[in-house]
């Protein structure tokens, strides 16, 4: 579910991201952040079919964490249902979207 690649953390978001799942993920990511210096966080939504505002909280939380040190948060693989939620929340003002995880990684490697 998590893959660390230098200062990049890739989070493979589960099928459903609600408050229950977000709490779990928060604990796990905080643990990773304690052990490593993460600058960029990529949320890959490829397999995600459901998300509520807890997912927005999750994105905002990670943004706050990396923003202090000039890092960034990306979302990839977002399908229609999830895109509507992201759009409505206004999160695209602080989070950049890529079509695929590969594109995000490619852009970061430049």
């Amino acid at each position: 579910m998590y893959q660390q690649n230098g200062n990049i953390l890739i989070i493979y978001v589960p099928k459903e991201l609600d408050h229950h799942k977000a709490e779990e993920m928060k604990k796990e990511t905080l643990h990773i952040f304690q052990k490593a210096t993460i600058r960029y966080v990529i949320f890959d939504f490829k397999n995600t079919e459901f998300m509520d505002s807890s997912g927005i909280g999750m994105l905002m939380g990670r943004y706050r964490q990396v923003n202090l040190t000039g890092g960034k948060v990306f979302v990839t693989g977002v399908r229609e249902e999830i895109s509507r939620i992201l759009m409505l929340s206004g999160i695209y003002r602080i989070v950049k979207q890529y079509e695929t995880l590969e594109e995000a990684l490619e852009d970061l490697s430049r």
Partner: protein
Amino acid sequence: MGREYDNHMKITFDSISENEKFARIVVAAFIARLNPTMEEMSDIKTAVSEAVTNCIIHAYENEVKQIEMEGKITGKKLFLRITDFGKGIENVEEAMQPMFTTGLKEERSGMGFSFMEAFMDQLNVVSQIGKGTVVEMEKEIGKEKEF
């Protein structure tokens, strides 16, 4: 005497976060007969998830108590009522503002009520301090959507 609705359900469940998913599945099964589009299904599931999450985090502050969920189908219309008996909301109008949250530390986005409002046709919130909160929502299925 005829009933004024086509189907009715009422369930009570514990305010544990696992039940957010349970509540979504119950409502999804309940409205299946209306043949909702994927978008309508997603809208309703999100609204239910937000309402139930509010009960768990805000009303009961993670204590295990009871949440009531009632649903009615009348023609193409879904009515939902989600009730808790928790601490209540001091200022409902303020709580319904986008980005308003008392749970900043818990990484809450403050978008819960905004999503319920956006995804349902009708949202009504009544709360009493120390007594609890009732959230009522309505949505017509199979209606052209104006966004």
